[in-house]
């Protein structure tokens, strides 16, 4: 793991390091002068910035109030538009209720839960490169995801955003509602704040992260 005090301090102060990684970094900064200085400077800068917060002048409050009161409200759409909208909503609701989406397969749910918890398993031999685009490998560990044994490869970008690539010997089940590429080799799904991309080649890989840009970069780098 490359020692990059600025990147790790930004991730730590930004709350991106969680669980064991946060504790590990907190132990590290006690002995590492460079990281300690980065964190200290970041904290001081934050306090300084917060001290610059100002209150709007009272006269501006009155000016805004007066300006808004002179603006005529825009004419709302006529009632028949709402009526038509209501009919459409009811129709869509009926269709949605008739086709209640199935839950994702257990393996996909387990992978998302593993990413969110930030849990780290028993260290394992990495199957992937040390770098994928701008992201650096910071660890590989075993993960039991539903019925699939996988190796979780944890990558971070320059500011500590994490992307995990779960590599397995068997194929991953497809997430509900996933979008497939033209060749049918990959699929993509979004779940709340997470993005998942699955590739079959060169390894059966599930790429998970909360920054879609990073997830796409990693998936693109993994393609043969």
């Amino acid at each position, binding site marked *: 793991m490359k020692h990059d005090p600025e990147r790790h301090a930004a991730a730590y102060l930004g709350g991106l390091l969680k669980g064991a990684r946060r504790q590990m970094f907190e132990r590290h900064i006690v002995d590492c002068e460079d990281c300690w200085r980065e964190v200290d400077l970041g904290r001081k800068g934050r306090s300084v910035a917060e001290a610059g917060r100002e209150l709007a002048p009272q006269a*501006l409050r009155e000016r805004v109030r007066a300006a808004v009161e002179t603006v005529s409200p825009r004419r709302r759409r006529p009632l028949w538009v709402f009526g038509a909208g209501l009919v459409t909503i009811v129709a869509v609701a009926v269709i949605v209720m008739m086709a209640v989406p199935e839950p994702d397969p257990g393996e996909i749910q387990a992978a998302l839960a593993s990413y969110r918890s930030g849990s780290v398993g028993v260290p394992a031999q990495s199957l992937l490169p040390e770098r994928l685009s701008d992201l650096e490998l910071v660890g590989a560990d075993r993960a039991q995801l539903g019925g699939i044994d996988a190796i979780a490869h944890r990558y971070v970008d320059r500011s500590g955003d994490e992307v995990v690539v779960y590599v397995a010997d068997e194929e991953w089940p497809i997430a509900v509602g996933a979008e497939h590429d033209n060749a049918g080799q990959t699929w993509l799904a979004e779940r709340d704040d997470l993005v998942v991309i699955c590739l079959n080649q060169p390894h059966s890989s599930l790429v998970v992260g909360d920054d879609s840009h990073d997830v796409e970069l990693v998936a693109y780098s993994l393609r043969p």
Partner: protein
Amino acid sequence: MSMRKRTHDEFLQATLPALDLVYNLARRLVDARDVEDVVQETFTRAFGAWSAGRPPRKVEPWLATICLNTGRSWLRRASTTREVPTEPDPTLAAIDDVAGDAIGNVRKEAVHAALWELPEEQRIAITLMDLDGFTASQVSKMTGSPRGTVLARVHRGRKRLARILEKEVDQVEA
């Protein structure tokens, strides 16, 4: 109460508590002489959207996004040159420093001038996170930059601020 008056009252009641937030952002977006115009335009634009039946789920990030767009349009339209204020801003004279925080004693004028020494992306990211209290995810959505990029900008900006104001911070800490 007329429908018209009720719409205005509902809007003002929901949005005026966020005036300080919009003001702080506008102060770091445009030249001092344009700040109040940008704030006013932000609220009148927001009212247009509100009264057309598009009230937001969360007022603060909605107003901040409108303010960002308004400020940038304003700069393009007026070709305003942004300068570091050289004279103390009269609006700051009446404002007390944040109590109870040692570093809060650093003069607001000095912090404001130091913020203007930062590159625009760092200045805006710090304003949205440290002055306006948004999360990195919210700032990421408002600015269209990845969350990691937002945090990197904020961290570099904070370091630079601390260095620019090093003497004042040290004096306060001593």
